[in-house]
């Protein structure tokens, strides 16, 4: 290499390093890939929040739906709650997984803030949560009609998340054409 060009080596190294660091700015380290994508929703036998009746996996699959992991101790869940109601009103079935929560507090929350859920699965011990790979609320899973998990979103579901990521997948799962 010519001695002149050698002088540019530090600059070149800096550019490469800066490139990596710039990429790092837009990466979210909390956004872990789920190990359960394209795997069936785990089996469970738990109770329903409303009446304490037994709920099994077979009771909640059969049509494409969202499974929303929430709890009354989770602040972000309160943030996304109005949007979930909007989604439910537009016809998207949403099942709730009440994660490590108190039943009374959860029922009070639903009667005060409204109830967007078809039914709520009580996961007091977090066993279903562990099987799903949940590590905090809120998390939202997109499950197709065959009971296969297609996508996992960690964090609040809002209009932007729905429009940019969930809705295209939702349409795909339903077998609809892509939105123009």
């Amino acid at each position, binding site marked *: 290499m010519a001695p002149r060009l050698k002088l540019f080596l530090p600059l070149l190294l800096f550019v490469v390093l800066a490139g990596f660091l710039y990429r790092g700015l837009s990466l979210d*380290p*909390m956004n*872990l*890939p*789920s*190990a*359960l994508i394209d795997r069936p929703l785990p089996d469970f036998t738990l109770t329903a929040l409303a009446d304490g009746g037994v709920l099994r996996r077979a009771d909640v699959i059969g049509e494409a739906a969202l499974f929303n992991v929430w709890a009354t101790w989770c602040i972000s869940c309160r943030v996304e709650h109005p949007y979930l109601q909007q989604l439910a009103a537009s016809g998207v079935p949403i099942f709730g997984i009440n994660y*490590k929560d108190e039943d009374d507090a959860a029922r009070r929350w639903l009667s005060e803030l409204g109830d967007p859920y078809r039914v709520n699965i009580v996961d007091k011990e*977090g066993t279903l*949560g*562990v*099987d*799903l*790979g*949940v*590590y*905090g609320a809120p998390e939202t899973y997109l499950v197709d009609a065959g009971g296969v998990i297609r996508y996992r979103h960690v964090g609040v579901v809002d209009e932007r998340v729905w429009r940019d990521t969930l809705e295209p997948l939702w349409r795909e799962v339903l077998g609809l054409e892509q939105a123009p």
Partner: protein
Amino acid sequence: MSCFKACCLALLALVFSASATAVIETYEFSDATLEARYQLLSEELRCPKCQNQNIADSNAPISQDLRRLLHQQLETGATDDEVLEFMVARYGEFVRYRPPFNAVTAVLWLAPVILLLAGAAGILLLLRGRRQESAALTADDQAQLTALLKTQEKNV
């Protein structure tokens, strides 16, 4: 004196109460080897919520759950591989601080070696270049140099 003693005792109690609250729950093991394996596994498993902590160090609810599951599984006779498989099936390779070598983790495992070799190669090239520069002075140059030095000696 008794007052001093009481104060000392109170301070001592304070010290111990602080450490008592910091202790993460303990489990009873039917076998000492199980406890040793529990320690090893809980140090290798990574907390998915509080990244860069293992589940032995973390007090996050998810780590408590995973420790409880780990204890349960070890007591029911699961092997280390079965435990790790269980965790990886739910939380992905991320939960292991020492992920297995495969196509996805190849960069992770090989990057340090490659960088080390690249650094060594760089240093070697640099040293060789320097040696050549100093060696370039010999032969004709050396003869010229001695001639110059001689003429200078004469002049003086």
